[in-house]
């Protein structure tokens, strides 16, 4: 697998350059905003990627907490299956269908729920308890990086087009800000608490953060209907060619995010291995320890990457 990293890195670089080219030259100029609207090709994909990473962090945290006991693990699995089924069926019910915002088709909602359920079980299979926590840390950290980009490019885009740096009424940007704050406090909690139970506390905070997101969305949504304000990026449908470039750009950023996450994951695993080795070394420190414990070879004796 180590050989694949450089190949993937080159491919991703090519994809990023292609997306860059598409974004700046191929995509049509926007009638209203002129060329500055092209910030969308970096702003929106970063946001989608950040939300995806935070969502995986939430799933990993829920699994980490649920796996503490077999009974809760089974219960969690059944709940996810139930959510999956309800989410898959609900959008096709007429009353629910007209609730859906204009751009969303019932089929797309159904498939997203399917993907969510699938994601839960895929993560459950490939990541066992310690790895779940490593996955959670990785997703949170890289997610905060992408989220920071959204919060930087947002105002840079709003300034020339709407003459304002920040629109509190804009649901998406304000929700992203709150999400960013929640996950920064998540990282601060991890750094400040060094007790062996840090992982559990962080997982609990991740669950709290996730519960918070819909509430943030609704509190701002109503706030916006009372004081209509410009929405950064403008709502409504997009020119298909623009949408095409946006998706290319998102694919490129997703690959990039995958590579960054993967290296951060490996770094975290290595950090824990080193910490474990140092702990084991403190095990063998007192010379002449006649204790019954077998002489333990530090796991790092084999050559590292």
């Amino acid at each position, binding site marked *: 697998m180590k050989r694949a990293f450089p190949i993937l890195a080159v491919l991703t670089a090519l994809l990023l350059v292609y997306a860059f080219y598409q974004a700046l030259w191929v995509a049509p100029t926007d009638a209203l905003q002129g060329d500055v609207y092209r910030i969308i090709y970096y702003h929106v994909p970063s946001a989608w990627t950040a939300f995806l990473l935070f969502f995986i962090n939430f799933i990993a945290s829920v699994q980490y907490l649920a796996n503490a006991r077999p009974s809760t693990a089974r219960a969690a699995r059944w709940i996810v299956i139930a959510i999956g089924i309800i989410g898959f069926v609900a959008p096709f019910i007429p009353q629910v269908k007209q609730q859906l915002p204009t751009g969303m088709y019932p089929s797309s909602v159904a498939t997203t729920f399917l993907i969510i359920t699938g994601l839960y079980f895929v993560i459950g299979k490939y990541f066992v308890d310690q790895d779940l926590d490593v996955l959670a840390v990785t997703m949170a950290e890289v997610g905060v990086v992408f989220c920071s980009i959204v919060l930087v490019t947002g105002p840079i885009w709003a300034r020339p087009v709407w003459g304002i740096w920040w629109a509190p009424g804009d649901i998406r940007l304000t929700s992203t800000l709150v999400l960013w704050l929640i996950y920064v406090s998540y990282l601060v909690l991890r750094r400040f608490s060094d007790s062996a139970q840090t992982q559990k506390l962080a997982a609990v905070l991740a669950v709290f953060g996730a519960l918070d997101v819909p509430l943030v969305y609704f509190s701002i949504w109503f706030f916006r209907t009372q004081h209509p304000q410009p929405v950064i990026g403008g709502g409504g449908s997009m020119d298909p060619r623009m949408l095409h470039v946006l998706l290319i750009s998102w694919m490129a950023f997703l690959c990039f995010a995958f590579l960054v996450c993967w290296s951060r994951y490996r770094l975290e695993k290595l950090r824990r291995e080193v910490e474990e080795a140092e*702990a084991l070394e403190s095990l063998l420190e*007192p010379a002449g*320890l006649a204790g019954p414990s077998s002489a333990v070879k530090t796991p790092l004796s084999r050559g590292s990457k």
Partner: protein
Amino acid sequence: MTNPLTAPRGAPIIAVSNLVKQFGRFTALRGVNAEFDAGKFYVILGDNGAGKTTLLRALAGLTDPSRGEISILGKKPHEASRDLGYMAHPSLLYDEMSGMENLLYFDKLYDIAGNSRCEQAIQAVGLDAELSRPVGKYSQGMRQRMSLARAILHDPKILFLDEPFSNVDLHSAREMVGLLKGMRDAGKTILVVTHQAALLEGTADEFVWMQAGQIVDRTNHLARGHLAPGDAPAGES
């Protein structure tokens, strides 16, 4: 205070199998294996950092082991909490409340209504139940004894005492040893972590020596055969 013990005297009541506890990089316990019998009085010795307190806290269910198993009366420490009494160097009492008020509150945690038991516990440790002075104003010896009263309030089968005699005057310490001896004779299992092991020379059934996170020796007398000359047994406080 005496009650027929379900586990016959001498049968193992506590079993610890390769218990490991790591606090981040520091390894407090490195594979402890031990069994403790019912109705016996154990003293756990060792210098600082040997893992005595961590072992006791793990047995009382206050610390989750990193690896390994603990079974008390056949159950996990959390499940056996009704039969466990825990006392530590800090008093585990509210300074602003009097001894009786403290016990009345902790009495409710064990769901045994009735302050008669509180009075009994206070008298058992040789204190006056009517004393209305807040615990904060007690002498160290009195505070430790009130803490012992709190630990035995619900008549537990097993007592975990962490440094019960530290900076307690000699007289009070000796009296507490007498109390513990009485409880052991009444059938309770007692584990004491202390640096003043000499106080318990005639009383304790077994001395458990710990070093660098492991049990290295178990003797029934304080004098250890192969004690390194430099390691004088912990002298009297």
